[in-house]
């Protein structure tokens, strides 16, 4: 326990002892996490946009004239079991007649003498799905029902939206990985400068019988503190930008961007700690080889 307290206090004291390196490391982490945080916020809000768009996706299934309402209800029950379908609404021939009247102001029976409007079903698709929503298999399954006359959907548009979203997600993840790798290397090199400046300290530790873990721990803890400070700074900056920028974006693009500070700090501090841990561990391990 006393050893842990000593190592923890060494890590904290090192922040002050290596002020310049600490500043450089914290600043690198701050920049990295600000970019990574922006990317996360954008990706998350893009997720909300895609959910909104998916909410608008609609498939209309028209049934043949001779299919009874009871049979339609049975078929729609089967529709619900198809993967990718969220909800269904049946529009009976009678409902269709009412809709016609409300839209055109005339009774269809007065015009043609009978009700030519088919019964139909409006299908809404799932919203919360990370991978691409593939509409083609759903359409194929709907068309397999012999009672189905026609299926209407915005196939090309849905496909384009889904493909663009998937490409955006892939690019975001790749960018995030690249940023993280580059920052691990930057932190590692920054910490290595501290280590070279502290050769005497490490030598003294070795001469008095310190184990590798004992020598490494204060440097790694110091790195973790850099990560946490960097994360706090970038969370505050991003939160301020969001606070003032979201109203502007709402007025210009009609899109409300919001993010909880706590969630943002939690994500960024986790990233910061991981980056710093690997960066400082890499540097000190190389030195002690």
């Amino acid at each position: 326990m006393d050893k842990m307290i000593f190592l923890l206090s060494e890590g904290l004291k090192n922040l002050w002892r290596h002020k310049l390196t600490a500043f450089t490391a914290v600043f690198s982490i701050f920049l990295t996490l600000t970019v990574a945080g922006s990317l996360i916020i954008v990706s998350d809000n893009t997720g909300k946009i895609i959910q909104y768009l998916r909410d608008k996706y609609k498939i209309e299934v028209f049934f043949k004239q001779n299919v009874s309402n009871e049979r339609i209800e049975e078929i729609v029950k089967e529709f619900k079991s198809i993967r990718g379908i969220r909800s269904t609404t049946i529009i009976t021939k009678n409902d269709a007649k009412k809709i016609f009247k409300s839209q055109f102001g005339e009774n269809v029976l007065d015009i043609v003498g009978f009700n030519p409007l088919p019964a139909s079903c409006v299908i809404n698709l799932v919203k919360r799905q990370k991978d691409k929503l593939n509409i083609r298999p759903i359409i194929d399954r709907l068309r397999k029902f012999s009672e189905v006359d026609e299926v209407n959907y915005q196939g090309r548009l849905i496909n384009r939206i889904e493909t663009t979203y998937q490409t955006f997600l892939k690019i975001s993840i790749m960018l995030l990985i690249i940023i993280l790798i580059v920052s691990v290397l930057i932190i590692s090199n920054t910490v290595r400068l501290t280590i070279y400046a502290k050769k005497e300290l490490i030598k003294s530790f070795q001469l008095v019988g310190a184990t590798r873990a004992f020598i490494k721990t204060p440097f790694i803890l110091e790195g973790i503190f850099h990560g946490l400070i960097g994360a706090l700074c970038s969370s505050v900056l991003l939160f301020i930008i969001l606070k003032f920028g979201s109203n502007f974006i709402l007025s210009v693009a009609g899109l409300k961007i919001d993010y909880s500070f706590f969630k943002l700090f939690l994500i960024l501090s986790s990233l910061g700690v991981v980056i710093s841990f690997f960066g400082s561990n890499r540097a000190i391990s190389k030195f002690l080889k």
Partner: protein
Amino acid sequence: MIQLDNVSYSYEKGGGVSNVNLTIQDDEFAFLIGPTGSGKTTLLRLAYMDLFPTVGSVIVSKYDSANIKAKKIPYFRRKIGMIFQDYHLLNDRNLFDNIALPLHVMGFHKDDIIDRVTESLEEIGLESKSNHYPNELSGGEQQRACVARALVKEPDIILADEPTGNLDPVTSFELIKLLEEINIEGTSILMASHNYNLIKGRGHRIIEIQNGTVRKS
């Protein structure tokens, strides 16, 4: 006990030691004397296993250089106190923290650390300077602080590499007296020096090394 059996070590750029056979008994005080570059530091580095012989073996207490594992070396070094000409004190912490360092490494309890460090500071006569930083101390005081740092972990053996190299004759004499007192309490001491006048006539064994070979022991 330190035992070197047929030990040879050579640096890439030349120099080192060859064919050294030497035994330092428990409780013994021995001087290692020789000119600069004769191999004194190499011999001491072999003894605290900072270097490993290319031929032969070094046995210190129960540790044998021929088969010691890398992860055991820190535990071995905890049994040995080391004193250097250039002190190796850490300038970013005060005297108390410098002396306490080996005890933190060994996992001592806070109260024990305070007791032991205070006792060591009293033994070397620097208790009033425990809050001073190394650069606020004279050369003699810094070297005494090194002795305290070596002593605080109650080692079986003290290896001193030219500890008087940066000190004036009076301070050097006082330091050797301090080491003699430590030896009387049961710690083996092997001290390297190039200053024969300082060590002659003190009644201790003198090991002479020249060009990497022990001439007289």
